[in-house]
Structure formats: structure tokens, C-alpha cells
């Protein structure tokens, strides 16, 4: 039952806000729908913890410990981002960057986007998963170009075309998957259900599955931002409104990765070797290395953190590629932490750029002098994402690297070097932004920093202490993935 609430609330929200989204209280209504979705997700989670994995709605939806944790994470970050966007978008409108029409579009698309991601996570049908991923892309295309500046239009076009091509390849992969499944399960709607496929995965034709996975990985990989198909990601993150950057980076990339992992489980079963894992390790490592090299050259603060997202998604893909209980556990943990930390960083960056009126890092200076909490938020967020203890990212990165030393020793020096370079470049650039000299006055309004410290608090907590039920949950999920 909860599942229908979970998907129904964002849908209702989008229709409601599509009709009345230009009203004065639309941002509050947006946040209220976010809260309701979060509540539905929480109920669903309790149900799963209580009763274990379940198939709902005549096989259409499948919830297990792996996707339920992503559902909660998605609903949570969607809610906090709506809280952040409440004052943020109001001020953007006051600065004349938006009119009420575009605000309506923004609120309505935001809800569709959240709904599409939740559908992608909960559906049991690999075809519907594809449809939902495409819907999530389409919902955000017009959000990236919301400001209608030349640069934002270019970014949105690139986003549309590249992700469109990518997702078309994923559709071909899905067709091949259906082709392999049809032989065993017979034609019709049930042949694409993941639970059915998972039961017969050992009988699926290996050559077809191999080809299918290559297409699925490249297709959804474009969406994850894996190199060399990542070039839409920094543009879309830098040119779109900051709340959109936060949800793209924190949520959409996770959902695309989720699609790849689900496919990987099937392919591993069919092939009986680690072809899928090796491919993922290759793409992951390439993304980590390439992203860290490019981080050094960035001048735009949102672009820099976008590249940092590519780096972290690469690291997670690499960890899932290695497989095994520990690596899967670490990757799941890292997915959670990256999403919380990166969205928190984007929130602070959003206010910082609003204050200076530019995204150039050389122009943002001395945040801590004028707005101490904002400055500390950015500093702590940066320290957290760079993997400093006691924040949680340290724990997950540590686990990934130590596993890599055991399993793939050749990759360890590359990973360590990349993390080192990323640390030096990001810290070196953020430090003057926070502590430098400035003559700018402080922000004339109260920045929305509650979500930032809420996220960072959670990241800190996960670094010091993982509650037992959460650990059990991650472990179950890691096992499901073949740990």
C-alpha cells in the first residue's frame, strides 16, 4: 500500500503545482509534498525491515533491502532540497532571474523528477525502469535551462542529446535482455520482471547477456557520468539552478547506478565470470583519474564539485565492480554519504554564489568573516567529501581502498594518487573562499542552512557509529548483490 502513496504523492504534487505553482506559497507546498513522500518512504522502510523483501502489485513492484535504502535516501534528500530551494528560489526570483511562470515549471518538474526516480527504484520491470529513467531526464532538461542564459541552453541541449543517445543504447540493451529472457520465460509482460529474471539467470544465453550488459553499462553509464561519456555532467550542474544541481548530483546519478547494478546481478548469474565487474572497474577507474585531473583546472565552483561527483561515482562503480561483501558494503555506504555530503555542499555553494553574484572561485572570498555559519558549512562539507576523518566518507573510502589492495593491487596506487590530487586541488581552492579577505557585505537574508548541518551531522554520525539496524540493512543489501 505504501508504494502507491510513495509514487502517488509526487505525481499529485506535480499536477497540483503545475496548476497553482505560481502562487506565493508554492515553495512551501513543494516542501510539504516532499515531507509527505518522505513519510511514505519511511513507512515502506519500516515495513521492509519488519517483513523482509516483498513483491507488490501483481509483480510490478519489488522492494528489497537494496532499493528501499535508496528510496529513503532519495525521499530524504528530495525533501531537504525542497526546504533549501524555498528561500533560495525566492531570492533568485527577486534578483530577476526567474518569473512566476518559470517558478511554476520548476516546482512541477521537480515533483515529476522525484516521482520518476522513485518509480525507477521501485519497479520490478526492467523496461519500466528504462522508461522512468528517461522520464527523469526529460523532467530535468527544462530545469537546467531554467535561467534561459546562452550557457544554460547549451548545457541543457548537451544534456538532452548526450543522455538521449546514452539512454537509447540502454534501450537496445533492454531489448537484448528481453530477447534472452523470452527464450526461458516466454513472451509477454512477465519476461522483463527482475525477480523472474533473477530466478532463471543461470539459464540466460551468455553471449546475448554479455552484449546486453555492454549496452546497458554504456547507456546508463552516460547518466552516471562515467568517463568518457561524462561531458554533459559538469555543464548541467554548473548552469542549472543550485537545487537542481544538488538533486542531479545527489540522486539521479545514484539511480542510474542502481540500474547498472541490477543488470550486473543478472549478467553475473548468466556468465559465471567477472566480465561485468571488470568493465565496471575499468570505467570507474578511468572516471576517477580523469575527473581528478580536470578538477585542478576548474575556475567555476559548481563545475569543480560536479567533477568531484564524477570522481566519487567512478569510485563507487569501481567498488561495485570489485564485488564481494566488503566492497559492496563500502560502495553502498559511499553512495549514501556522497549523496548527503554533495547536496550539502551545493546548498552552501548556492548561497555563496548568490552573495557574490558569480560562480568564479577567485571572486568568492572570506565567507567566514561575513557569514560564519555559511563559511563553516562549506568548509566542513569540503573536508567531509575529501575523506577526512571523523566524517563517514573516510570510512567508506578506507574500506574501498583496503579491499582494492587485496583484490586489485594494480589499481591501488592510481586510486590513492587520484584521491591525493583531488584533495590538494579542492582544498587549495576552497580554503581562500572561506578564509580569505573580503569587502562584500553579509547576506541580507538568513541562508537556509538547516539542511546543510542536518546532512553533515548524519555524515559525521555514520563516520563514528553506524546504528546496528543500518549495518544489518547494508549487509543484507550487499549480500543480495552477490557478496
Amino acid at each position, binding site marked *: 500500500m505504501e508504494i502507491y502513496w510513495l509514487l502517488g504523492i509526487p505525481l499529485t504534487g506535480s499536477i497540483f503545482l503545475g496548476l497553482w505553482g505560481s502562487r506565493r506559497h508554492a515553495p512551501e507546498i513543494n516542501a510539504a509534498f516532499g515531507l509527505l513522500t518522505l513519510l511514505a518512504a519511511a513507512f515502506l522502510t519500516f515495513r521492509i525491515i519488519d517483513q523482509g523483501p516483498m513483491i507488490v502489485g501483481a509483480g510490478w513492484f519489488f522492494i528489497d533491502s537494496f532499493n528501499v535504502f535508496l528510496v529513503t535516501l532519495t525521499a530524504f534528500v528530495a525533501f531537504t532540497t525542497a526546504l533549501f530551494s524555498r528561500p533560495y528560489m525566492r531570492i533568485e526570483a527577486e534578483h530577476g532571474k526567474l518569473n512566476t511562470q518559470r517558478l511554476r515549471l520548476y516546482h512541477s518538474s521537480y515533483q515529476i523528477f522525484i516521482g520518476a526516480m522513485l518509480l525507477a527504484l521501485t519497479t520490478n*520491470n526492467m*523496461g*519500466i525502469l*528504462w*522508461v522512468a529513467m*528517461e*522520464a527523469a531526464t*526529460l523532467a530535468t*532538461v*527544462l530545469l537546467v*535551462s531554467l535561467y*534561459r*542564459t*546562452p*550557457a544554460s*541552453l*547549451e*548545457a*541543457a*541541449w*548537451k544534456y*538532452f*542529446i548526450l543522455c*538521449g*543517445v546514452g539512454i*537509447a543504447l540502454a*534501450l*537496445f540493451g*533492454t*531489448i*537484448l535482455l*528481453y*530477447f534472452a529472457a*523470452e*527464450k526461458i520465460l516466454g*513472451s*509477454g*509482460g512477465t*519476461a*522483463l520482471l527482475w525477480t523472474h529474471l533473477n530466478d532463471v539467470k543461470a539459464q540466460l*544465453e551468455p*553471449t*546475448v547477456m554479455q*552484449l546486453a550488459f555492454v549496452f546497458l553499462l554504456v547507456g546508463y553509464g552516460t547518466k552516471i557520468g562515467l568517463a568518457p561519456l561524462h561531458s554533459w555532467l559538469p*555543464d548541467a550542474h*554548473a*548552469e542549472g539552478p543550485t537545487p537542481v544541481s544538488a538533486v542531479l548530483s545527489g540522486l539521479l546519478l545514484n539511480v542510474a547506478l542502481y540500474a547498472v547494478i541490477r543488470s550486473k546481478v543478472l549478467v553475473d548469474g548468466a556468465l559465471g565470470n567477472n566480465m561485468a565487474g571488470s568493465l565496471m572497474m575499468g570505467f570507474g577507474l578511468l572516471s576517477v583519474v580523469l575527473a581528478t585531473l*580536470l578538477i585542478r*583546472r576548474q575556475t567555476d565552483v559548481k563545475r569543480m564539485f560536479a567533477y568531484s561527483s564524477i570522481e566519487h561515482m567512478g569510485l563507487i562503480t569501481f567498488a561495485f565492480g570489485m564485488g564481494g561483501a566488503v566492497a559492496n558494503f563500502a560502495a553502498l555506504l559511499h553512495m549514501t554519504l556522497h549523496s548527503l555530503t554533495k547536496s550539502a555542499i551545493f546548498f552552501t555553494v548556492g548561497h555563496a554564489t548568490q552573495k557574490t553574484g558569480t560562480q568564479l572561485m577567485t571572486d568568492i572570498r572570506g565567507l567566514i568573516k561575513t557569514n560564519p555559519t555559511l563559511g563553516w558549512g562549506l568548509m566542513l562539507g569540503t573536508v567531509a567529501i575529501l575523506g577526512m576523518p571523523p566524517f563517514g566518507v573516510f570510512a567508506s573510502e578506507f574500506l574501498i581502498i583496503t579491499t582494492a589492495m587485496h583484490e586489485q593491487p594494480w589499481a591501488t596506487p592510481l586510486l590513492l594518487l587520484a584521491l591525493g590530487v583531488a584533495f590538494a586541488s579542492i582544498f587549495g581552492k576552497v580554503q581562500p573562499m572561506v578564509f580569505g579577505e573580503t569587502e562584500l557585505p553579509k547576506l541580507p537574508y538568513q541562508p537556509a542552512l538547516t539542511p546543510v548541518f542536518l546532512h553533515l551531522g548524519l555524515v559525521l554520525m555514520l563516520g563514528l557509529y553506524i546504528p546496528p539496524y543500518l549495518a544489518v540493512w547494508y549487509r543484507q543489501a550487499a549480500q543480495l548483490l552477490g557478496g
Partner: protein
Amino acid sequence: MHPAYHLQLINLLAALLLLISFAMLAQRRVAGLITLFAWQGTALAASTALVAWSTGQHHLYYSAAITLTLKVIAMPWYFYRIVKKLDVNRVVEPMINIPTTMLIGIVLVIFSFNLALPISEMSGTVMRSTLGIALATVLLAFLMMITRTKAIPQVIGFLAMENGLFFAATSATYGMPLVVELGVALDVLVAVFVLGIFIFQIRETFDSLDLKHMEKLKER
């Protein structure tokens, strides 16, 4: 009808699909491109309906009907309207000259047939031999997207790719489950709608639909 005849007819339509893909690569005018796209949709819808009739797979009739309404009637009409409204029907030179593009296209076709061979051997459908053509259509459309620098040709390339994918689904497995096919059709429709809005935004901002103006965001 004798079974061998409709099989030949399907193969003929498949060949037509491939031929139209090549014609698209060579077409310089936007309006001509839209007409070709409509013809490609017609060939796709006809072959899908033929397969539905000859094999008794009734859900394929719906698929054919969707293709006919969306890709032969609605979308070309919408694109013609945009072209007329924005007055962009001029001769456009692709980035790579046309003979070279054609040669690359031939290489792509050979590659697709090689890639599809092991799979089509496993398939049990009447039109398994056309899987290579389907893949070739996808890759040729991809090539067209790369070589064109204008907004509308890129969109048509994107949709031609979708045509190839639908054809692949029909030839390998008699189409995807109906729910999925409906979902895909809905996504494509929304995509075209979003693009329509988008094309007007680009025109408004840049005063042109040439994507050469949109090369500012690069790593320096």
C-alpha cells in the same frame, strides 16, 4: 498470401528502411529530412503491421498504430510547422562532406551485420535476418547526429535512432511487452514536446538554430 511472399515483403521494407537512412545522411535540406523521416516511419509501421498479420502477434498492431500516428503524422507535421515558423529551410552543409559520410556509413553497416549475426542465429522470429538492418539504422542515425550542427537535424537523427530500436525489438522478439512499448512511446512524445519548447528558446536566445553558437562550454 503464401508465407514466402510476406517474408520477402518484410525484407523489402527492411531494405527500404536502410535505404532511407542513407538518404537522410545525404539530405541537405531540413524539409527534405522531415519527409524522409515520415517515410521511414511509414516503412516501420508497415513492416510491424505485416509481422503482426503474418504471425498473429496482435499487440504489434498497437505498436504499428502508435508509430503511424506519432512518427508519420504528428511529429512530421509538428516539425514542418516549426520549420515554417522559424524559416530555417535552407541548404545546410554537414561537418563532414557527404561522400565521406556515406563511406563511413557503409563501414557501419558491415559492422552491424557482424555484430548482429550471432544473435539473429539464435532468434526464432520470421524476420531474424533483419536485425542487422535494425542495428545499422541505429548507427546511421547516430552518425547523422554527429555530422549535423543544426538543432532540427539532430532531433530527427535522435528519432530515427528510436525507429531503428523499435525495428530491432520487432525483428528480434516480436516487440517488447506492450506496457514498455507504450511507456517508450510516451517518453518519445514528451521528448519531442520538450524539444519543441527548447528549439524556440534557442532561437530566441541565439537568433539562430545553428549549434555552432553553442560551443562555449568546453574544458580549456
